[in-house]
């Protein structure tokens, strides 16, 4: 091996060794971005399901408080990433995502139970109203019958009176 070949090999080896070091900040940066995006998507999804649970009549106070914590962590990760302070970005984003995922599954459960509950309440209301109306109509009919019979009896018991010059 001549001198040029040895230098070329050393240069190639140096470049190969240094390459990951040059690429490391980019890899790190993309890791943070992926973490933030995943947390953002999880919170959005969880919020959508919390909203659905709320519309179904569920009490979402606790879930929203937990999701607020996740939102604060995501904002913290976002703000630190913006200024290049990457130290705790991934951990904050991952914590936010795991809280959001937990809230998401709880919200789905709450939405389903709230739908079943509101269906039961709706059915009970309809049945109660139908029974109440039926009983009320029956009572009114009986009252009418009684009044009518009373009136007929009164009419039959009355003595005919001849009135003069009655117009």
């Amino acid at each position: 091996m001549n001198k040029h070949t040895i230098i070329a090999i050393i240069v190639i080896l140096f470049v190969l060794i240094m390459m990951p070091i040059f690429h490391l900040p980019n890899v790190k940066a993309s890791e943070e971005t992926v973490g933030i995006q995943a947390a953002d998507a999880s919170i959005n999804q969880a919020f959508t399901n919390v909203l659905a649970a709320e519309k179904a009549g569920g009490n979402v106070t606790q879930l929203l408080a937990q999701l607020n914590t996740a939102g604060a962590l995501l904002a913290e990760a976002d703000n630190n990433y913006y200024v290049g302070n990457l130290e705790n970005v991934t951990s904050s984003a991952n914590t936010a995502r795991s809280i959001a995922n937990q809230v998401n599954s709880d919200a789905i459960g709450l939405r389903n139970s709230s739908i079943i509950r509101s269906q039961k309440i709706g059915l009970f209301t309809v049945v109660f109203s139908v029974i109440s109306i039926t009983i009320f109509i029956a009572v009114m009919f009986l009252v009418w019958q009684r009044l009518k019979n009373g009136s007929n009896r009164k009419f039959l018991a009355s003595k005919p009176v001849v009135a003069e010059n009655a117009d």
Partner: protein
Amino acid sequence: MQIKDYRNLLIAVTLIGILLFASPVIALFIKPPVGEQFSVIYMLGKNHTFDNVPFNVQAGIQYSLYLGVVNQMGSSQYYTCSVKLGDENSSLPDTTLETPSSLPALYEYKALVLGGATWETPLTFQITNASFTNNVCELYGIALNEIQYSIDIPLFWDSTHSGYYYNLLVELSTYNSTTESIYYANRYVLLALNMTQ
């Protein structure tokens, strides 16, 4: 009272009774009209009042504020508050076009607020680096809630109002779960700051 009158009275009572007993079922299908829906963003001084809201500011001094959002949208909302800094000539949000300011967002808050509830949080800011030369004030750094931001906002002396006027702006955006996107809620709060030496 004639029997005919009794009949009419009973028919009226029966109809009213039917309506009364059917009202819970009617309420299931007819929703009452929803009132006006809106969101409010506000800024208060450190005593939770309009007093002590900073106006004349100096570099190196930390100023405290409270930022709040009131949700009167009738359901839970997912808000984003974007803190921006610009000079008096920078673009402001357009309330007619409902577009936010073109200034870059420095700091962000994310808040999930129940319908009818209020969310409030502290906001501290400190101009960390500024220079005054030849009737020009230049801001190089600001700390928002202890996070340092490098900025470069030069501003000429405003001879009309005698000062270097900057705007600390907080814009409110809402997440729309139907379209799965964040949109500017056409609400912002602006704090005018007079930079002094």
